[in-house]
């Protein structure tokens, strides 16, 4: 569950102000808005990478406003994937578990599971250089989900992909939604994408939440 109450962030020229919304456990939320509307900033606040100037971030009922990122149980997929360039795909998928000192055997099981589901088992020994856009997004998604976070934050995962790749990734995101194990906050500037995936939709405009016309 993600709950934001009266959140404000000031950053240079623009500011987010009075942002409040709630995403239930297992719900798939899509936040739309123009490029530069502050969508990424909002994700960073939820992830704990940026401090809000005001307001409360609650994750699974706990006030996490002042938690460091590592204590929030959040998976984060940035727009460009931001894969670790020195690590193999296998090492990226294992990263969150290795950091938590999970036993090697359990790590291998989880990595195998993720790789098979995401269709990247054949890439496990590759490094990010040379992966396609779709492959990069799958690895980034797997890396974020490895430790089974309660909250998943997706920053434009489908933009900049060709149609075929987009269809494949959408299929994976739908499976994720239907599994109902994670609250997802997916941001995009693409309305069609929002309509295809969202349980609940929000729209960010000029630093404030605006009503959304069509709702599933």
């Amino acid at each position, binding site marked *: 569950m993600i709950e934001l109450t009266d959140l404000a962030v000031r950053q240079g020229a623009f500011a987010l102000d009075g942002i409040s919304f709630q995403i239930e456990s297992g719900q798939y939320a899509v936040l739309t808005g123009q490029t530069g509307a502050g969508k990424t900033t909002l994700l960073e606040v939820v992830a704990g990478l940026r401090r809000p100037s005001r307001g409360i971030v609650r994750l699974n009922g706990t006030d996490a406003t002042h938690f*460091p*990122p590592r204590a929030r149980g959040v998976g984060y997929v*940035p727009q460009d994937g931001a894969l*670790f360039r020195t690590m193999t795909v296998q090492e990226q998928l294992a990263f969150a578990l290795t950091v938590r000192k999970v036993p090697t055997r359990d790590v291998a099981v989880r990595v195998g599971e993720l790789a098979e589901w995401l269709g990247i088992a054949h890439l496990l020994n590759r490094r990010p250089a040379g992966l396609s856009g779709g492959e990069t997004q799958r690895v980034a998604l797997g890396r974020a989900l490895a430790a089974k976070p309660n909250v998943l934050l997706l920053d434009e995962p489908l933009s900049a992909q060709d149609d075929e790749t987009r269809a494949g990734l959408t299929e994976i995101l739908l499976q994720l939604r239907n599994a109902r194990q994670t609250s997802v906050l997916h941001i995009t500037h693409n309305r069609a994408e929002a309509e295809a995936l969202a349980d609940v939709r929000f729209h960010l405009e000029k630093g404030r939440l605006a009503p959304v016309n069509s709702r599933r």
Partner: protein
Amino acid sequence: MPPGHARDRLFVLAVALLGGLYVGLIAALVFADAAYTSSSAVGRALEDPNVRFAIRLSLLSSTATAVLAIWVAVPLGYVLARFQFPGKILADALIDIPIVLPPLVVGVSLLILFRTAAGRWVEGFLPFTYAVPGVILAQFTVAAAFAARTMRVAFEQINPRAEAVALTLGCSRAGAFWRVALPEARRGVLAAATMAWARALGEFGPVLVFAGATRMKTEVLPTTVYLEMSVGNLETAIAVSLVMVAVAGAVLLVVRLAGAGAGGRA
């Protein structure tokens, strides 16, 4: 031939010519040195115990300097690349001082620093002035600035989002640095270390002023060249210079090959 092809060729030719001009200049310098001296002069230089000592001290002090420079340059480069803080512009400008200052001034400044009460207190434990630690400190003062500049550029070229992701995946800031940022900056670290090493090897002014030119004690290779020049022994001076070129070339080649091997995994 498609239209414009000739112009492309011309461009490549011009670029290669301008770049090649410089490479040619350096090659000509080394060649002229080699032609001026003789293999027997090089042989005599290599047999001279003073020169042997200077080679040893040069290699050891430069390596120590490179390590010390990396210890300082990595955190400094990281801070400058990742954080905004009051006084950053000032810190940035201060790092430029050893780069722009005439080398002799660096040496004189070190001498003056070690005459202050604090400097004397330090020398009570470890003498720097006119001693081997002084050689290393003089080299370090200049070399670390170059290493820090290199590291800053290296960290700036790394996507900070990767570190952000590492934080969400369970890393502390330190963990993200050691697991993600530093491995990604590996080539930068190597470049900074070789830069520092090469600077230290060639460093002369501050070493001469701060550590002196005592034979068999604080004499490094550039000092040898200076001493030989100052008595008009051009042949020996140039023979020693060629020894320096050969030693430096060999070490840098090995390091770069090793670095390319390690970098190839990335």
